[in-house]
């Protein structure tokens, strides 16, 4: 078991956007291998580049955006060689599918649910309309729509938000993708519905054998879904590791900040930790470690030179000068050293609620 096949490999990726007469650098030299069958969560605050990064895998950047440097290897070819929309059609939706936050943006309001699913099946699997309908109904049942035969002819507005998201997932699965990108798929949903959708995506990943890239800013969701976590800040991945590495042994001051400011870690009568300041403007050139001006641990070098990747183990690396052997030893904040203890204290019966 546990063969670590790389399914998608990103090398030195840089993405820029033209905004009137200015240039914004959204992705600044990211290299990352995605391992087959893993769930990789990408976290980071708004504007850090999570969506832009993954949109490059399916050629879906907005018109004013461009990959200015780098390679994306998938099934033996560099996707950056694809120059036409037609070329991307072989990949987008077929090999790499995306589920977005707002299901309505992916559904056509004037077409029935059934039509929209079977259309994809017919197009990608060259099946007759009879066969496609049969498979669509099967898929609807599989994603948890009750009485799929009856609901086949209904329109998107007749479904609740959670049900619509199930339909979008069914459409994404209709062509058996190798990679499913979930971009904040449950952010707009209630917690109990969110829990169901998360469970569904996990079950389907096993059944349909796809690799999941899960974008979210909710660290609770990350803890639930992820095998590996990539933490993004100002267009870079600043820490990457197994979910345990990142929650229990994080190394980058930004990751520390993110974890420390969790309201769940708050103690009554104590102030919550808050990261000071704001992220840097991506219109300006960023010197050194982008997080340095907000960090409580920055050293002189952080303002001068970009930190390289420091490896902590086979599964874990971080881009911070604190890991350089010459750096002074610093301990992560107390709150996150005792994260597991505090979280257990939050819940009854050692973290489990139940009868």
């Amino acid at each position, binding site marked *: 078991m546990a063969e670590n096949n790389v399914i998608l490999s990103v090398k030195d990726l840089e993405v820029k956007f033209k905004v009137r007469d200015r240039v914004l650098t959204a992705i600044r030299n990211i290299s990352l291998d995605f391992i087959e069958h893993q769930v990789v969560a990408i976290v980071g605050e708004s504007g850090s580049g999570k969506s832009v990064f993954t949109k490059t895998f399916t050629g879906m950047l907005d018109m004013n955006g461009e990959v200015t440097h780098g390679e994306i290897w998938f099934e033996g070819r560099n996707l950056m060689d694809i120059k036409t929309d037609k070329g991307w059609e072989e990949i987008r939706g077929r090999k790499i599918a995306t589920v977005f936050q707002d299901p309505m943006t992916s559904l056509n309001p004037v077409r029935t649910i059934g039509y929209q699913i079977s259309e994809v099946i017919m197009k990608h699997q060259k099946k007759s309309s009879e066969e496609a309908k049969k498979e669509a109904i099967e898929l609807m049942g599989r994603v948890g729509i009750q009485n799929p035969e009856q609901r086949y002819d209904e329109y998107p507005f007749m479904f609740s938000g959670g049900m619509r998201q199930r339909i979008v997932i069914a459409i994404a699965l209709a062509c058996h993708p190798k990679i499913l990108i979930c971009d904040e798929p449950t952010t707009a949903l209630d917690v*109990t519905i969110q829990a169901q959708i998360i469970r569904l995506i996990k079950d389907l990943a096993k059944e349909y054998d796809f690799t999941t890239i899960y974008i979210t800013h909710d660290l609770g969701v990350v*803890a639930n879904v992820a095998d590996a976590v990539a933490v993004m800040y100002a267009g870079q991945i600043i820490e990457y590791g197994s979910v345990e590495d990142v929650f229990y042994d994080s190394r980058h001051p930004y990751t520390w900040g993110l974890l420390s400011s*969790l309201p769940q870690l708050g103690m009554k009568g104590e102030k919550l930790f808050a990261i000071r300041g704001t992220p840097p403007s991506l219109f300006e050139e960023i010197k050194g470690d982008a997080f340095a001006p907000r960090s409580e641990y920055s050293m002189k070098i952080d303002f001068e030179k970009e930190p390289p990747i420091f490896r902590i183990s086979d599964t874990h690396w971080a881009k911070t000068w604190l890991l350089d052997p010459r750096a002074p030893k610093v301990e992560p904040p107390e709150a996150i050293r005792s994260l597991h203890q505090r979280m257990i204290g*939050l819940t009854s019966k050692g973290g489990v*609620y139940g009868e």
Partner: protein
Amino acid sequence: MANNDREVLVKVKNVDITFFNGKRPFKAVKNANFEIYKGETFGLVGESGSGKTTIGRAIIRLNQISGGEIWYKDLRIDGKLSKKDRQYVVRNIQMIFQDPAASLNERATIDYCISEGLYNFHLYKDEEERVRKVDEALNSVGLLPEHKSRYPHEFSGGQRQRVGIARAMIMEPELIIADEPISALDVSIRAQVLNLMNKFKEERGLSYMFIAHDLSVVRYFADRIAVIHNGNIVEIAPSVELFRNPLHPYTHSLLQAVPIPDPQIEKNKTIQQYVETEAEQNYDKAELVEILPEHFVLMTENEREGYERKAAALK
């Protein structure tokens, strides 16, 4: 009871709120009963459509109630009020909204946005006093006087939410109803806003009703929590007690569903589907019973024994 020495700020008594979709009535809130004490943060937690915002809006008189009573101290505030009493309520109970962008007038300067309540109720002697009050309010939320001439869209989400808080604080209210004040904000900014709200509670004895869908945030912030589902308040307890000993099955399922940022806990949890209790289905036969000290659960007479057994097992 231990509560006798605490001053009741707001009393919600047997409140029903009914909406009409066309001709069909829809009861959004069913027989709600709770009190908010002076100086406390009262959390109201439920999923979308459960009725939490509806109750909050009824307290600030934006929604009419179809049954029951709402009291602010000695004044009954549901229904018709004299102009003087209306002003009294607006001054003392202010609301902060979920979406900082939508709650501010985009075409007005920050100065105007913050002063609006002062203008409406002539709560200042002269221009000098108004300016001083605005500067103080800005300062208290960590913004600068030079921000006054700017417009809301020139601010980040976190800054706009601060403007929303300043706008409420300038009225020097006793109670703030905060409707999901941090849901629209980035993780790193949430902590700043929560700290700010806590500061006002400590410094000025302000009370809050904190409406949220995320129990984990409320746990840190609230002193007591009420859980609402389908218009029924199913459980009320001090925050620590609610997390330690949830008794109503809906509270259980909500606690299970909220993802905890800890992989060991999350990867091992199972989620039970909530099935509506008898009390929820027959809310006219149900009442909130104090099953443990200060810990209330919505139940019918039939269900009572079961809850009593559960509560006894905890001791």
